[in-house]
């Protein structure tokens, strides 16, 4: 079994009539994802994607009529915050936000607003999830990974593709690959996903791909050291990046010496996580486990 998205996923696409939403819905359908509804306010009653998917005016109606339990968001940044709240209010259990560029203050409010609801948000600025070969909820190309025992969790988009593709070249498949999103404020962090992988029977190993900034990787490292039994291989992007573009004193005062590539790599190593020097080294490290 995979995590978060699987054969039970009944997907609703917010922004299904837009260019990106339409293109990727088509890709997801071809992959085998069960898309049960689309939502575009004002276009309710239409059918899209060769008449396969009904469009509704609101998430609430779409959920009532189709039993959708997962939503993916492709709407433009200035409407995406609203779309997340509508999805949470409409009764889906998992919301995946692909949209990039939502103002960070809006995300602060949204994260607090949905904290006590029975809903998980992945993203924003996320490539989504894929559980090969069953389903994908997102934009990760379907042909670059196949089913296997490695769970992948990452803050990046294309860097994640690079890693799962390298795994595939080495004939290593993935259980589920999750992009948690590259924005400073996201709905789901590394630890949430690691705990899912720890409890997933299909997953034997985990690959964690982080990057400079924030403290999420450091916290995940102590979770791995203290709680996880499954081996973890890691990669941190940004060793060659210049010391943070300065964000005034406040950022430096808060972050102190943490958040750099060095501190994250050290945290990983101290937690017993094998750290790759470059993405294509990851398959070797897995084989040596």
């Amino acid at each position, binding site marked *: 079994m995979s995590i978060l998205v699987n054969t039970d996923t009944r997907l609703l696409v917010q922004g299904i009539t837009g260019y*990106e939403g339409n293109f990727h819905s088509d890709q997801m359908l071809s992959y085998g994802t069960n898309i049960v509804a689309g939502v575009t306010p004002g276009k309710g009653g239409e059918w899209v994607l060769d008449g396969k998917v009904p469009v509704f005016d609101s998430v609430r109606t779409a959920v009532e009529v189709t039993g959708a339990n997962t939503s993916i968001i492709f709407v433009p940044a*200035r409407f995406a915050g609203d779309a997340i709240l509508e999805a949470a209010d409409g009764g889906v259990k998992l919301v995946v936000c692909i949209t*990039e*560029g*939502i*103002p*960070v*203050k*809006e995300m*602060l*409010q949204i*994260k*607090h*607003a949905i904290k006590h609801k029975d809903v998980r948000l992945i993203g924003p600025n996320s490539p989504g999830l894929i559980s090969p070969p069953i389903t994908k909820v997102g*934009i*990760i*190309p379907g042909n*670059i990974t196949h089913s296997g025992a490695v769970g992948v969790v*990452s*803050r*990046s*988009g*294309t*860097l*994640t*593709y*690079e890693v799962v*593709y390298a795994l595939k070249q080495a004939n290593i498949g993935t259980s589920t690959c999750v992009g948690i999103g*590259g924005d*400073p*404020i996201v709905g789901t962090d590394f630890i949430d996903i690691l705990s899912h992988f720890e409890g997933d029977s299909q997953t034997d190993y985990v690959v964690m*791909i982080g*990057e*400079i*900034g*924030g*403290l*999420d990787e450091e916290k995940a490292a102590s979770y791995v050291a203290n709680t996880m039994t499954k081996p973890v291989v890691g*990669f941190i*992007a*940004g*060793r*060659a*990046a*210049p010391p943070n*573009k*300065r*964000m*005034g*004193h*406040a*950022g*430096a*005062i*808060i972050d*102190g010496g943490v958040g750099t590539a060095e501190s994250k790599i050290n945290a990983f190593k101290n937690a017993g996580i094998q750290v790759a*020097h*470059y*993405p*294509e080294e990851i398959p070797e490290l897995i084989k040596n486990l």
Partner: protein
Amino acid sequence: MRLHEYQSKEIFADHHIPIPRGRLASSPEDAKLIAEELNGPVVLKAQVLVGGRGKAGGIRLVRSPEEASDEASKILGSKIKEIPVRRLLVEEAVNIQQEIYMGMTIDRDSGSTLLIASAEGGVNIEEVAKTSPEKIARVYVDPLIGLRDFQARNLATEIEIPRELWRSFITITKGLYLSYQKLDATLAEINPLVITTGGRLTALDGKMIIDDNALFRHPDLVEKRDISSESFEEIEARKFSLEYIKLPGDIGCLVNGAGLAMATMDIIQHHGGQPANFLDIGGGASAEKVAAALRIILQDSQVKTVLINIFGGITRCDEVANGIKKTLAQIETDVPFTIRLVGTNQKEGREILASANLVTADTLQEAAEIAVRKSLAFAK
């Protein structure tokens, strides 16, 4: 987007934060006139968007209008960290009893706004934070409720603001928070916030950074953007929504996605090379965007070779290949290219490049090795 000191202070003043009297000058004559109006010692402050202005000679205290004119003529037109000074803020000089720090920013860890203050403000605030973290007072602001009076009061007591200044301190704290909220700032800072010898609180310096993702809500700010102090690359990059950062090396990089762009720089360094830039063309990039990115990279005379690494998801490899081919047909360059295209439409992309006699690599590892070899060959 960063605001100038004078812009931040205008916003502060709108939110009841006391600032010194003064105005902007763009000529020595202006500076003299303003100094005459202020009728006393004044401070000339270069309006450039770089840190460490004071240490670089961008801030001068002068005693008379004539001296203001003389000093202004020296600073205006000079350069501070490569940025030409075009405007000065001319302000009344203030006698300082104590320098306080006050700032607020997004705290990723708690998912809220973090407000910090210290009784030991001024230029060495980061040093204070490192050596005596207990001297930094913190308040977390619930994003749904906002800053409350008691929180500002707690800050005041913790950093030992004299009781008679509490009311003013609370007004300033709330004013800074409102400025930060209203402008969608990711940082708002007063350093120093001073207690004058006359016993008043005044914001002597101000800094704000606005969330670029929220600029659509602030068209007036976009108009005020100071492009006079930006480079060609920065202006071009913004025009085409590219993320570009200049670095000291000689291998130009063009990559889709920030994480992959960083990983590409890392592997270059791993093989003994040095990246000349960070450049992310983003998702779904068009041939035009690729062409603009290449022009930015190639105008950098330090670039001896270029590495292009594209993992196509939304981005199509044939679109990227067309952009490369078109640009190289227009620009004369001897700079050798190493190109790696994988993912959506990779076959079509590679065919386009082959038809233009451009060499492609299969793996990132191989591409990085070739690029580093080319850059080292140049060094010999």
